[in-house]
C-alpha cells in the first residue's frame, strides 16, 4: 500500500508539474526533462511556441545554447531545454529584448559578410569560427563589440538555465540540499595543506 501511495504521489507531482508547465509555456520542456521519470521525456510536446523570439530567432538561440554547452559525454543545454528558459526570461525582461533582437541581427549580418549566409545555414566549424573571436579575449577583433556583448548575454542566460536543471546539477555533481547527520568534514585528514590530492577527476 505504501509503495502505491508513493507512486500516486509521484503521479500527482508530475501532473502538478505539467500543470505549472502549461501555465508557463517557457517551462514545458525542461519540467518534463527534469522529472525523475525519464520515460516522460518522450511525450514532451514538440514544437515549442516561443514567447518572445520569432521561430527563426528561436532556432538560432537554441543553436547558440547548444554550442555553448554541447551534448558531449554528458547531456548539454539543448537536452536541458535551456532555450525555453532563455526565451522565457527575455520575454519577462523588456530591458533586454531590444539588445537581444539587435544581437541576433548583428550575428546574421556578420555571417553574411563573412560567408554570404546566415548563421543557421553555416556548418558547425564555421559557426564556431564566428563565435570564437567573440568568446576568447585573445581572439577579439575590433568592430565586434556588439557581437561580444550579445554572446555574453546569451552565455549568461545559458549558464543560468543549464545549471539550474537536474541535468545541470548532475553535470557538476551539485551536492546542494542533501541532508547530513553530521557536519561534513574534509576527507583529507592527513593532508591539511592539500598538496597531495589525487589527480584531478576532470
Amino acid at each position: 500500500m505504501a509503495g502505491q501511495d508513493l507512486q500516486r504521489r509521484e503521479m500527482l507531482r508530475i501532473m502538478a508539474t505539467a500543470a505549472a508547465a502549461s501555465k508557463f509555456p517557457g517551462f514545458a520542456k525542461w519540467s518534463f526533462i527534469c522529472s525523475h521519470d525519464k520515460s516522460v521525456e518522450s511525450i514532451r510536446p514538440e514544437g515549442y511556441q516561443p514567447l518572445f523570439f520569432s521561430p527563426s530567432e528561436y532556432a538560432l538561440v537554441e543553436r547558440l545554447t547548444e554550442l555553448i554547452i554541447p551534448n558531449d559525454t554528458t547531456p548539454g543545454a539543448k537536452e536541458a531545454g535551456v532555450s525555453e528558459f532563455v526565451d522565457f526570461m527575455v520575454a519577462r525582461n523588456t530591458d533586454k529584448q531590444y539588445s537581444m533582437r539587435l544581437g541576433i541581427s548583428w550575428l546574421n549580418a556578420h555571417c553574411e559578410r563573412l560567408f554570404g549566409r546566415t548563421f543557421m545555414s553555416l556548418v558547425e566549424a564555421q559557426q564556431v569560427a564566428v563565435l570564437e573571436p567573440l568568446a576568447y579575449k585573445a581572439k577579439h577583433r575590433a568592430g565586434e563589440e556588439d557581437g561580444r556583448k550579445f554572446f555574453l548575454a546569451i552565455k549568461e542566460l545559458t549558464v543560468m538555465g543549464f545549471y539550474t536543471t537536474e541535468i545541470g546539477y548532475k553535470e557538476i555533481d551539485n551536492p546542494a540540499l542533501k541532508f547530513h547527520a553530521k557536519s561534513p568534514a574534509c576527507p583529507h585528514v592527513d593532508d591539511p595543506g592539500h598538496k597531495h590530492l589525487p589527480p584531478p577527476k576532470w
Partner: protein
Amino acid sequence: MPKQIYDVIVIGSGAGGGMAIKTLCEAGLKVCCLNAGRRLDPAKDFRNHRKPWQMTFRGFGDPAKRSESVGYMDSEWVPGVWEHEIRYTTAPGTEWTWPRCWAVGGKTNFWGRSSARFGDIDFLAASLDGYDVDWPVAYQEIAPYYSRVERMIGVSSSIQNRPSNPDGEYLPPFNLRCLDHILQKGAEKIGVPYLPDRIAQLTVDHAGHPACHFCGACTTGCDTGSFFSTPWRFLPLAEGTKNLELRTDALAKNILVDERGLANGVAYIDRKSRQEVEVYGRAVIVAATNVETARILLNSKSRHWPTGIANSSGQLGRNLCDHLYGESAYGYLPQLLGQPSFPDSVGDNTIVWMPRWQNLKDPHEEQFIRGYSVYPGGGCGEYPWYATRAEGFGSSYKREVKRRYPTPISFTLQAPSLRTDRRLRDSVRADSFSVGRKRFENVATLKAGLCRFASCGRRRGRRLRRFTERSRLEPPRYRDVPNGARSQEIRHQRFRTGSRRAELVCL
C-alpha cells in the same frame, strides 16, 4: 468595555523584541507585541528544500521585478516575506537598499547567525585609542548575560583564546572543509587566525531543538528551528505563559503619551483594515530595527515632545547604521581544480571566521583604529556563479566549469567601509546581539530619506518624515557584488604577498 492596559507593549519581535517578550512574559507581565508583518508558516513560507527547477524563475527572481529586490535573501524561496508594499525613497543622488523583513521574528528568520562576544577591547576601546567615549559597561558586567544567551540559543564554536573576542559556552563547532584547511594553512603563515565561527546554529540537539541537518539553505529560513530565530525559540515560550498577545500586521505609527508626557500606549495601523488602532500599556519597548525605531520616535510628536519623543538632544535618527552586509573579495583555490564535489555550503558558509587581528597589541599599529573580522566561504555552492567569468564555450568550457566547481572562495569583510575618510574609519562588528547602538556613532549616516506609507489609506503617498540628514559616506551596496575589487587590504597586501599557496587569483 473598559480599555485594557497591558504591562508592556513591545514593538517588533526580532532579536531585541523577541528577547524582551520572552523575558517579560516569563516574569509574569502581560505583554502586547505589535508586529508590522504577518506570521510565517515554515512549511509554506520557507521553500528551502526546493530545487531551482521547482521555481518559476529558477530562483533568479522575476526579471521584471528585479529592481525591487532588496538583496539575495529576498528570493523565490521566501516569496512575499520581505517588505515591498510599504515603500521608501532615498535622497536624490544616493543609493541605499533597505532590506526589511517585517514578518514575525524579523530578520532572525534569515540572519547570518554569527554570535561572537565583544571584549574589553571593544567596550573600552576609547580609552585604548583615544577616540570617542567608552561604553558605559565593561566585559565583566556583560559576560554573565552572554553566557545566559549562549545557553539559551545554542552557539557552536571552539575555545580560541583570542584577545579580541572572549570565549563563551559553546556547542561543538562545525567541521572544517577542504577549503578551510587550505586557507587555514595559508593564514597560519602570515599570522592571521582562521577559526570556527561562533554560530547560533546547533551542531547537536540543544534545549529541545533538533541539531542542524546541514542542508545549506539557512538563508531561506530553517524548517526545523535548528538555528536561532525568535519564532522558533522565544515565541513558543512566551505564548506558553499565556501572557502574550501578538498582534500581526500592526504597523506602529507613533507612541502615545499621557498628560505628563510619559509613554502610555502606541497608535498603529492595522494593515488589513487600514484603520488606526490604539493600544495602551504601562511601558513601551520600541524594538523595530534602528531605522524604524527612529521613525516611530520621531513620529511621536506631542506638546511635550515637539521634535519627537526622546529627542531633546536632536540626535534622534542621525548617525544610524543599519546591519552591515559586508563586502567581499573573491578568488579560487587552484589545489582543488578538478577534485570531486563536496558539500561545502552546509551551513550557508557561516562556518569559519578570521577574528580581528589588527590593532591588538598597539591600538595605533594600523592606519585605522580598531579592527574588523573576515568571514571566508566558498566551495561547491548551489549555483556555479563563476561560470560566466570562465572564457569560451563548447566542451572545453563545460569541462572548465566542472573543474572549477570546488575552487571558488570568498572573503566577506564586516566593517562599515574602508574607503571612508579617516574620521569615520571606526570599525563595527554588527550583529543582532550587539548590546547597544552607541558604538555605531560616527559610522554612517544612512539615507532613509522620505518614508512613505503607501498603504495607509488617506495618508497614501504623504511624506511622513525625512528622518536622516545628509550622509557623509556612501554605504556599502548590498546587491552589488563586485569582481573582487573591494576589500583591498585582504586581497592585495595579505594574501597576494603573504601566502603563496592560498593566493587569491581573480577569476
